[in-house]
């Protein structure tokens, strides 16, 4: 990858999946790319052409060729952008790589869907979703242990998880609970990540995310209370 390459990232400012890619790009020192904001309620022809299967962001378009699915894009960037003494996002040995992929997959399976259940439901369903989320975050906390970051150094799994921190405020407010009370080490980890410019520059304001969640709920006719 070099300066002549054309890079376009189709994104939506509130998307945690898009944030993953933005963090990865920054970590790899890739700053020369076009960031295009998509309106998910009125998708651009380019998005529909580049991701006809899922019609979702993020999509990275590299010299006209699309790469879809956030952790897929992160792996791709890690594989093609090898320069400037910038860190590898995945560790070099196969076993450590497989552990990183396992935890990224776990996060993909367990975090976003549960958060959405909390913000979109009330009553029994919301209670169950809250329990599920706390259980998931506790498993992740145990995996983190005493390490500063999941892989020891900041990398693949941290990138997979930290964007969801921007959503904590929305989930806590609509769910009426505090994640830090149950998972203090995980919240400490998130704050540690936010000290990195690559992360803080890529994550949206939690308050704006909360307003966005309310807006989307409203559009889907979900009552707030």
């Amino acid at each position, binding site marked *: 990858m070099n300066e002549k390459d054309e890079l376009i990232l189709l994104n939506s400012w509130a998307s945690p999946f898009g944030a993953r890619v933005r963090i990865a790009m920054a970590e790899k020192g890739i700053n020369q790319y076009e960031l295009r904001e998509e309106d998910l309620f009125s998708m651009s022809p380019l998005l529909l052409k580049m991701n006809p299967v899922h019609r979702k962001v993020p999509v990275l378009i590299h010299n006209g*060729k699309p790469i879809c699915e956030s952790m897929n894009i992160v792996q791709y960037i890690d594989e093609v952008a090898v320069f400037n003494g910038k860190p590898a996002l995945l560790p070099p040995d*196969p076993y450590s790589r497989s552990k990183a992929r396992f935890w990224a997959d776990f996060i993909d399976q367990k975090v976003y869907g549960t958060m959405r259940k909390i913000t979109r439901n009330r009553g029994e369903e919301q209670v169950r979703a809250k329990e599920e989320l706390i259980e998931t975050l506790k498993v992740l906390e145990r995996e983190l242990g005493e390490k500063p970051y999941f892989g020891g150094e900041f990398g693949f799994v941290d990138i997979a998880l930290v964007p969801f921190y921007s959503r904590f405020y929305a989930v806590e407010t609509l769910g009426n609970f505090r994640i830090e009370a149950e998972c203090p080490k995980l919240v400490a980890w998130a704050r540690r990540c936010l000290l990195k410019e690559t992360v803080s520059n890529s994550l949206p304001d939690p308050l704006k995310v909360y307003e966005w969640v309310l807006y989307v709920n409203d559009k889907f006719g979900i009552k707030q209370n």
Partner: protein
Amino acid sequence: MESQEVKLLGFWVSPFVHRVEWALKLKGVPYEYIEEDIFNKSPLLLELNPVHKKVPVLVHNQKVLAESFVILEYIDENWKQCPLLPQDPYDRAKARFWAKFAEEKILSDGAWRAARAKGDNREKALGSTIEALEKIEGELKGKGKFFGGESIGYLDLALGWISYMLPVWEDVGSIKIMDPTRFPATAAWMSEFVNHPAVKDSLPPRDKMIIYFEKRLKELEI
């Protein structure tokens, strides 16, 4: 040199386990297979995969791995012969993309759901499964014997279950998904796949699968 001790915890009818076995066979990696009863999980399984409590679990010289796609990538990176993923990063990204797509849209929420569902839910599940299969058909057109060309690879292993398990689900659930006239490339690929030396003699017997899935259908009706 490190001794290569490989164990695989599996369940005889699990397509997630089969794909790991094919990968090991293709690479010529000897392994010890340990059958698990997933309806009565052993302390060993629960100890090795406490997070998901599922098979397959691969144990390589004390290193424990779970989740079939994660295991496939590990096998590919650790044993270099007979590469499964393409060399080019863009082609690798595409292979990973389609594997995940098929897993979500044709396997988990697709064909098995359609087999179990009734009425409107069945129509809906069938429709979306067939739509997903059309995309896979598109990916196979003009490719050669397999998704990556002439050699079997990662995406073939990811979708291989279609070639022998989908027909069983169609039978048991009285649904028709794989119409060879509508999906000629997929039909041809299925035939290549089941006849591949690494696959041929390792598939579970069809009659045993029929009995198993008939029972599961009754238990899991939606």
